[in-house]
């Protein structure tokens, strides 16, 4: 099992087998390089742990535990969890500030205790088999166990072709579950308990209203979140994309006194996606030692099978691929830890979807306003196709249906509607089996009871932070792409103190009229270049279907894509309809796949075929 994920921890491997339990660990040594070997135990070897991640406040926790009489064998953060567990049992997680997935075996109680960090930075999967309970950081570890089934869960696929993600604990593989973020799972005397220990909340009664006070508090919190994320016994670098968030993080690192900072970024050959000029500006302003990897469409097509192998689920965009190439660069430069700006958009209100919802609400209220098309063009300046559309079309696209206004999913319905159109490619048999599937109703049933009391802005923030963040941003684009090359990402914006503070902010401080992340920009002020602070937000994107065409103007796809999209392979996998896919592929060959819908369909179908091929049909034998 552990060999399957050797890249997550190439520095050492450890095992502990005792009685009914076996723990394994692949180590990426970052804190206490010499002493932090795992699995690790307490003084009398009754409590054992295997742990992936970092506890950033381990220094403070260690001092407290020492005062209480605990004795430590190492300087590692891992050992802190063990002693904290001895002190507080399952409640120990409330004291942790970090990103973690761990399993503790408490032999006295015969209890296996699994936990995952609040926002889902680190992955953790499990499955029940006739022989016992298995768990691991990646699904491929579980699939290496012969009694774990290897088949696609069509209901999960229906969710991905609606939301881009599955609703945890469901995964794309039938019988394999994901421990949801902010949850613990306890396995004791044959029974399992799955319990949330933390959840996002938006509490209007505790709103922070005064801007000046909020600005200071946010900056202080972000500085401290960054400070404790620099704790490591190896050098720490940073991603610098040229956008606001990563520039803020790099600026905070510098402000904390780091003199030499290595930063890394992706540059695109295709100018539509490239942000090099902003990267240069930020790097020069902050005086960082900057390195970039140039990414072409061909590179994306070339590495895509590896990307899906690491993401372990179908993806609808190729955006993870450049991040796969970026982590390779980071590792080659001798770095294994990077700070990044992930989480800022979710926590501090940066996404276009928040703006779009605001405009659509305005539109519904003032249907005759002449401002509407102007606002929508301002919203998506980077979409060439949209810019050239006439007002009449914009009006039709962003038309608000009456029923939608009352929907708890108002902000997300247009996106989900569009993604759901891709289901037309499913085979008759798949659709037959999916009959009665209603992903949106399932999501509605699991919303927190307070959801309806939140304002519309907070509702859409919740949908992003609770689902897309862990299910796609932090996994398919985050942990999986970084860990593919043994690199650990750290995210100051996702420090739970920052998240909890931001959830008490008034929405008007997050987005002032249509100025996204308003408070963040105000808080960091001149710490970052004015041009980066004032630039229009450009979401991170990469070339899609054209990445799989060999050479410019060629009608031939990469070999593996030709093979996996052939009528024979489509029929064999059974998920999609070969005729429909054939016409999409023909359209792609002619370079006519232009629309967002067609591009998502192409990438979604190819990645699903790759999942079926690599994890089911040709899963590596030992």
């Amino acid at each position, binding site marked *: 099992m552990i060999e399957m994920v050797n890249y997550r921890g190439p520095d050492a491997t450890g095992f502990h087998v005792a009685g009914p339990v076996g723990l394994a660990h692949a180590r990426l040594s970052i804190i206490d390089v010499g002493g932090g070997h795992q699995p690790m135990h307490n003084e009398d070897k009754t409590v054992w742990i295997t742990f992936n991640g970092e506890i950033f406040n381990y220094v403070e926790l260690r001092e407290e535990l020492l005062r209480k009489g605990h004795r430590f064998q190492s300087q590692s953060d891992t050992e802190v969890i063990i002693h904290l567990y001895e002190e507080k049992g399952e409640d120990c997680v409330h004291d942790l500030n970090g990103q973690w997935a761990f399993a503790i075996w408490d032999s006295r109680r015969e209890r296996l205790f699994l936990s995952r960090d609040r926002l889902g930075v680190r992955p953790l999967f499990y499955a029940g088999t006739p022989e016992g309970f298995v768990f691991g950081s990646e699904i491929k570890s579980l699939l290496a166990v012969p009694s774990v089934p290897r088949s696609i869960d069509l209901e999960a696929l229906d969710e991905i072709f609606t939301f881009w993600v599955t609703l945890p604990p469901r995964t794309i593989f039938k019988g394999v579950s994901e421990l949801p973020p902010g949850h613990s799972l306890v396995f004791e005397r044959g029974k399992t308990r799955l319990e949330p220990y933390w959840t996002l909340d938006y509490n209007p009664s505790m709103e922070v209203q005064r801007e000046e006070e909020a600005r200071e508090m946010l900056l202080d919190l972000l500085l401290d979140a960054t400070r404790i994320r620099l704790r490591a016994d190896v050098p720490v670098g940073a991603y610098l994309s040229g956008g606001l968030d990563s520039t803020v993080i790099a600026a905070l690192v510098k402000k904390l006194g780091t003199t030499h900072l290595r930063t890394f970024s992706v540059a695109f050959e295709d100018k539509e996606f490239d942000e090099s000029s902003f990267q240069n500006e930020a790097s020069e302003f902050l005086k960082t030692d900057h390195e970039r990897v140039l990414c072409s469409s061909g590179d994306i097509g070339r590495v895509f099978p590896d990307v899906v192998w690491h993401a372990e689920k179908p993806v609808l965009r190729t955006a993870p691929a450049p991040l796969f190439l970026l982590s390779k660069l980071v590792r080659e430069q001798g770095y294994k830890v990077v700070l990044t700006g992930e989480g800022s958009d979710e926590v501090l209100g940066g996404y276009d979807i928040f703006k779009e919802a605001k405009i659509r609400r305005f539109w519904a209220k003032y249907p005759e306003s002449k401002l509407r098309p102007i606002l929508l063009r301002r919203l998506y300046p980077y*979409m060439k*196709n*949209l810019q*050239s*559309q*006439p007002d*009449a*079309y914009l009006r*039709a*696209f962003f038309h608000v249906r009456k029923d939608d206004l009352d929907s708890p999913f108002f902000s997300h319905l247009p996106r989900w*509607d*569009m993604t759901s*159109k891709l289901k*037309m*490619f499913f085979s008759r048999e798949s659709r037959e089996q999916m009959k009665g599937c209603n992903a949106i109703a399932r999501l509605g049933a699991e919303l927190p009871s307070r959801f309806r009391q939140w304002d519309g802005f907070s509702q859409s923030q919740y949908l992003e932070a609770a689902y897309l963040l862990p299910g796609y941003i932090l996994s398919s684009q985050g942990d999986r792409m970084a860990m593919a090359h043994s690199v650990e990402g750290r995210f100051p914006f996702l420090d739970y103190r920052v998240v909890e503070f931001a959830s008490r902010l008034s929405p008007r401080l997050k987005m002032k009229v249509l100025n996204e992340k308003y408070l963040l920009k105000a808080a960091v002020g001149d710490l970052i270049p004015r041009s980066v602070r004032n630039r229009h937000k450009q979401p991170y994107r990469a070339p899609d279907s054209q990445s799989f065409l060999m050479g410019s103007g060629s009608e031939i796809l990469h070999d593996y894509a030709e093979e996996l999209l052939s009528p024979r392979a489509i029929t064999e996998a059974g998920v999609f*309809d070969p*005729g*429909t*896919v*054939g*016409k*999409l592929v023909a*359209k792609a060959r002619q370079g*006519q796949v*232009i*629309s*967002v*819908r*067609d591009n998502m369909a192409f990438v979604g179908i190819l990645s699903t075929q790759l999942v079926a091929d690599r994890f089911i049909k040709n899963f590596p034998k030992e």
Partner: protein
Amino acid sequence: MTSIETDVRQYIVDKLLFGRTDTVVNGDTSFLESGLIDSTGVLELVAFLEEQFHIKVEDEDLIPANLDSINALIRFVESKYAASPDSRR
């Protein structure tokens, strides 16, 4: 069925429905409302019209009344032919 209608229907079936025959597209079915075209697909439709019928679609032509159903497209192409008979193939 006129040849314009045949060509337009062929395009819809091949390029927007990808051969699926279980979705009924009537002459007046709205492409936008039925989701056949998304917010970035209109330009694809324009490219088809210009190439297939040898007409020039001007910016001011880009309104749903001209482009949002099979019947609208037929009327639009015919009006272009009427305005400029030389453009007919």
